[in-house]
């Protein structure tokens, strides 16, 4: 139980990251690859937030001016993740527009069949 208590968030985060990477590496359908990237992003965000967690800490928001700053979780990773989420959606939107273009040109989303350029 204490193993789970200590590591469950890390397991979740790196599980998502590795599954996302696996999808990117082995799948050939472009939409699936993009889904893999999005899963990886979610995993990274979870990892960053888990790093900033402090046991029994509260959210870093003072509901009234009198509250003392006893035990609060680290606000920095949260700020970073806010940024990372927006960057993630930006990349995804761009990737999907490329996917739409690709389908228009080649009539397929299968990356194996798209071999215009030699390596």
């Amino acid at each position, binding site marked *: 139980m204490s193993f789970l208590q200590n590591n469950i968030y890390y397991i979740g985060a790196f599980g998502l990251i590795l599954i996302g*990477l696996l999808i990117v590496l082995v799948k050939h359908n472009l939409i699936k690859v993009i889904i893999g990237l999005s899963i990886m992003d979610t995993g990274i965000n979870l990892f960053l937030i888990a790093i900033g967690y402090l046991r029994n800490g509260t959210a*870093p*928001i003072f509901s*009234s001016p009198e509250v003392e700053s006893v035990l*609060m979780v680290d606000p920095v990773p949260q700020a970073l993740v806010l940024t990372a989420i927006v*960057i993630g959606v930006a990349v995804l939107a761009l990737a999907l*527009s490329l996917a739409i273009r690709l389908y228009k040109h080649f009539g397929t989303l299968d990356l194996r069949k798209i071999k215009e350029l030699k390596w």
Partner: protein
Amino acid sequence: MRSVFSLILLVVIGAGVVFTLSSIPFGSTSSDVGEYYIDSGRADTGATNIVTSVVVGYRAFDTLGEVTVLFVAAIGLGAILAAGRENEEKKKAEWEPASLVLYTGCRFLFPLILLFGAYVFIHGHLTPGGGFQGGAIIASAFLMVYLGCRKKRISKTWARNTESISGLVFVVTGLTGLAVGGHYFLSNFLPEGTLNTLFSAGIIPIIYIAIGLKVGSELTGVIDDLIEESE
């Protein structure tokens, strides 16, 4: 062959990660920087939501960059979808009209969602939420109108102007700080006001409102471009 190689790669990455994670125990790390923000965030920036004071105060430059990332992606998406569209004939697909219940519901909910989005980014320095969340809520209101009312479209010029004016407000606020507020880019040049009231925290509400409008109009523009493409 390829999947075997990928699995080996993933196992190696996983092993390295587990090894390093053992030096970062969960739930007990506390950083000096984070503690400093919690202790003096209220005095330094006047925001009671410390995440906001980090996002728009201490690390505001990151946020400027991030807004730019979204801006770049929106332009890039427009450019990619526009390239090659010129020489295709426009064919207008007929949309099946939405049912009356959906139509009325959307029209009724739309202003309420907008209002909620605005609330979220105006109160960013007091409660959870802020420019990004509020902007996303606003964009989802427009998305709902697109799905429910089918033929309704926002004006492209209007969205683009909102986007660029709110971006300018961000940069100009920063430059004003450079000119008058202690000669630092993005430094606070307004009085901090009383803690925990709406009109407090100096430039934070201004920047967060600008971000909210910018993110909202950009995401709406992205959705609009994509839907137009799929017609």
